[in-house]
């Protein structure tokens, strides 16, 4: 099974906007995804956005990429602009989050803050 379109897109963006080559960009991205327990083959946009928001900058920094925060901001913007929304299957988290219909839940992603 091939990597998801979201993974390929972000890896190519990393290759284009940083000094990392193809192998480094994809390898580093796989490591970050592994840390977040996401699979590159079934990766969804929201999962990637969470990884960019929370983990990627630190990994880019470790790889010697300059201005990792601005790289992440650019990646997040381009990912949003790419419009993967339609055609990409939802994750089970998103579907169950919708079935629960908890307005305070953050499907797929972060923990819900404890209710007051």
């Amino acid at each position, binding site marked *: 099974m091939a990597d998801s379109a979201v993974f390929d897109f972000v890896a190519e963006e990393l290759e284009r906007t940083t000094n990392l080559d193809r192998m480094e960009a994809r390898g580093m991205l796989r490591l970050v995804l592994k840390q*977040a327990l996401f699979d590159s083959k079934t990766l969804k946009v929201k999962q990637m956005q969470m990884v960019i928001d929370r983990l990627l900058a630190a990994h880019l920094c470790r790889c010697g990429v300059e201005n990792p925060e601005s790289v992440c901001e650019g990646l997040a913007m381009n990912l949003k602009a790419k419009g993967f929304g339609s055609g990409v*299957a939802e994750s089970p988290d998103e579907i169950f*989050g919708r*079935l629960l219909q908890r307005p305070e839940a*953050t499907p797929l992603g*972060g*923990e819900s803050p*404890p209710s007051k």
Partner: protein
Amino acid sequence: MIGIVGMGVFFVVGLFVSLRLLGLWRKTRQLPELTAGMGLLGIGPLGFCVLLGGPTLAPGTRFAYLSFVTGLAVQALGFLSASVFTWRVFRPGARWARAFPIVLGAGLAVALVGYMVVPIGSGQPLWHFHLDIWLKATCLAWGAAESLGYWRVTRQRVAIGFADAVVSASFLCWGIALSAAALGFLGIYFAVLALRPGEHLGAGVEVALSSCGMITASALFLAFLPPKAYARWLATRSPAAEAHS
């Protein structure tokens, strides 16, 4: 009596949850809402109502058998919906998972034709009974395995703040509900196999089936209608939430 209690609770919770899911589908028009709602309604309240209605109201008549077979047809549609839900939610890209509902539907249709052509009597169960129950148990077990497997992953994600604790718990509860339902079907199967001609199900079997109904109902309730206090408890248990506090 205890048999009625467990099945009654399952009936009420199943009806409430399935109608809520179908109500949600009216808003979202998404396949998972529709298939989950139809699956639950068909397998549970509606299926059992039609299945047992005739034999209870007019035992031994042609109407009773017609009602029984119609109930099986309703249940078959419910199982078909449930398998589409499992495929769509957990394995949308897998060909074998896409084929599963087709195989299940064909198998259940064959079993249904078997029930119509060769009515079951008081003797040993016939081939269509075996086919029907094993297909249904497999469908439930598949859904349970997928949901529990996914729960294991999300539980770890919750620990590092990458998943919602309540959503994660709903995978566990959905898995438990399906497991208990599968056990219930297998319980009926083995109990019927052990029966001698003319014998009825014993009290022990009824208690076991009732327990399965209770567990399924409780797990369904927590999976789709988690009370606020329970959701709060889950959220505060996650390490990520502790880090925030």
